[in-house]
């Protein structure tokens, strides 16, 4: 595939590559209700940056401020060092997909694109090329009102690509796409970034962007809670091995001598080791005559880390309450009323513990650890388990 943009980043006149996207102290308040508060982050040129946050966390407002559609209460957003509205030909610098509804339902797909080709002074042939690029070439003359949500998302992307921009800003582009469409979008964006383009893509689901994003910006309640490369986030929340052994302190010392310094004795007496696999630990334990009773590998689910970082805006009640007469006596929220059982009525033991729908960020008491001082409130420290369902998996 050819480069999707007309001008490569290193083809800029002047010195050095373009500075990418920079958001500085962006704030938006709607009638005294803050939507975005003092948000600052950067999007390095040539990267795919995932802009993550739960629904209502201010992602769309931020992107609209970045693109000059919403006036910030304070702060500034810069693209190539200037506000979007000061770009001489914004459609040729930034392509944006903000809303799948951005086409008139009575226009055909081709007419829709030709309108914006004309506005951007782009050859009309680009309209057909963009439709072919996103896989809508066969429905070019169909009205956009007949399109499915996924097709409208593709059309919005085709519109964004008309000016062959260096930047793509996408607001939840996977909405409405089927798995095949999502895979195609991921591949397309990776190809775009490899060609030197810069992508800022928002989502409320980490898994959607985790595989393609080089950088992650995580917001919650309109504020920044995390910004790093995806690799750094993965390294910060690496898997750990819980070792039950005869002498945890001795094993920890042996591990430290071998360069594995991240080993902590847990409240239950097990040794939690980060940065070593069970085989290596077993070998070191054998050298030190430490008996290992069992090991348990815990893998970090980054989605759960993300949920832990962003939880708390809309706290749902626990569980699902069946309508009906109230159960006698106090019932803890989220639990069904106790069913009276006769002594002879024995359920078989479940092979797996029943799934508990637990508020993200809340830890079972046996795993409670003090938060690290450098982490934002509510965010688990690196190497700390993001407690909750799926936080660590066998």
């Amino acid at each position, binding site marked *: 595939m050819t480069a999707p943009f007309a001008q490569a980043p290193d083809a800029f006149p002047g010195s050095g590559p373009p500075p990418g996207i920079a958001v500085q102290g962006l704030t938006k308040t709607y009638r005294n209700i803050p939507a975005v508060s003092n948000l600052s982050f950067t999007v390095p040129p040539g990267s795919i940056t995932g802009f993550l946050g739960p629904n209502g966390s201010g992602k769309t407002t931020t992107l609209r401020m970045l693109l000059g*559609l*919403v*006036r910030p209460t304070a702060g500034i957003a810069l693209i190539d060092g200037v506000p979007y509205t000061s770009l001489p030909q914004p*459609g040729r610098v930034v392509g944006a997909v903000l809303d799948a509804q*951005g086409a008139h339902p009575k226009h055909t797909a081709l007419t829709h694109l030709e309108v914006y080709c*004309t*506005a*951007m002074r782009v050859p009309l042939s680009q309209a057909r090329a963009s439709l072919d690029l996103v896989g809508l070439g066969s429905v070019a003359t169909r009205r956009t009102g007949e399109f499915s949500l996924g097709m409208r998302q593709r059309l919005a992307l085709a519109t964004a690509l008309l000016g062959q921009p260096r930047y793509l800003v996408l607001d939840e582009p996977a909405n409405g796409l089927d798995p095949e469409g999502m895979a195609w979008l991921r591949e397309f964006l990776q190809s775009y970034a490899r060609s030197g383009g810069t992508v800022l893509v928002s989502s409320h689901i980490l898994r959607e962007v985790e595989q393609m994003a080089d950088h992650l910006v995580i917001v919650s309640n309109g504020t920044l809670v995390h910004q790093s490369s995806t690799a750094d986030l993965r390294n910060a929340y690496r898997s750990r091995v819980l070792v039950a052994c005869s002498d945890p302190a001795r094993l920890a010392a042996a591990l430290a001598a071998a360069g594995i310094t991240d080993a902590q004795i847990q409240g239950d007496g097990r040794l939690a080791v980060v940065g070593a696999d069970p085989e290596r630990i077993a070998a070191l334990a054998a050298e030190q005559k430490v008996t290992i009773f069992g090991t348990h590998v815990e893998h970090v689910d980054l989605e759960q880390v993300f949920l832990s970082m962003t939880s708390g805006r809309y706290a749902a009640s626990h569980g699902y309450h069946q309508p009906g007469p109230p159960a006698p006596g106090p019932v803890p929220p989220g639990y069904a009323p106790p069913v009276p059982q006769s002594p002879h009525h024995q359920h078989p033991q479940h092979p797996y513990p029943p799934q508990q729908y637990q508020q993200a960020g809340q830890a079972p008491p046996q795993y409670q650890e003090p938060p690290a001082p450098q982490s934002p409130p509510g965010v688990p420290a690196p190497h700390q388990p993001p407690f909750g369902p799926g936080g660590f998996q066998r």
Partner: protein
Amino acid sequence: MTALLNAEVRKVLGLRYWWILGIAPVVVGLFTGALTLPLARQVEDIVGEGFASTVSAAIGIALALALVFLFAAVFGAVNGGTEFQHRTMATTFLTTRGRDGVVAAKYVTAAAFGLLYCVVVEIAAVLTVLMFASGDSGPSSGSDFGQLAAVLTTGMLCAALWALMGSGLGLLTGSTVGSVLAISAWVPFGELIVSLILHGLGLGAIADLLPVQLTWYTIVGVIDIPETGDMAVRWPGAPLALIGWTLLVGALGWWRVRSRDVG
């Protein structure tokens, strides 16, 4: 600016409402003369020769123009509000530098289509009246044709102004339906009701400055008839006041588009 204008025209031509809205005034322009002429001929013997064609021409053109103004305003409102209704305004702003150019292009497009409606309807109305009045002595003098041309030209000015007012209202409200309903209520009877209320309150002078009233003062003002001396607002006050209304509504729409957050 040329690119934006071309884009706006493409947007309009890619839809059907522009010619659908033009059908009603054209049909009225075609048939009003045909309907009024036989009626007027029945009293021609009493009033005098040439009366029928003059009256039918006046009524036919006046009715056709009234519909042109209404539908030009509706066109402007649809053209201005539809981008907000269908949430395409964000895409439009993202592909252009600044919002002023977009608003200017929308106003120019609205005025152009208002003019187009008027020209087509006037041609249809005049041709029909001439066709059905063939043989009558009617408006055959140079003075009559001069006055007819003045009426038609003034009608074109008013059509453009009404299209601009409709467009301004559409941009101001961001609602096609609301703007169209407001125009459809105001032009045929809304202003009349307000005018009656104002007269009842002793504020008749203000009623004379309402836009529909000013439009007819503007058109009648170019006709050389003795009654024009009694008009509350005469030339050039009437067209200037109408332009003032257009500037007011247009400026409000422009300001709203510049200042609003596009969600």
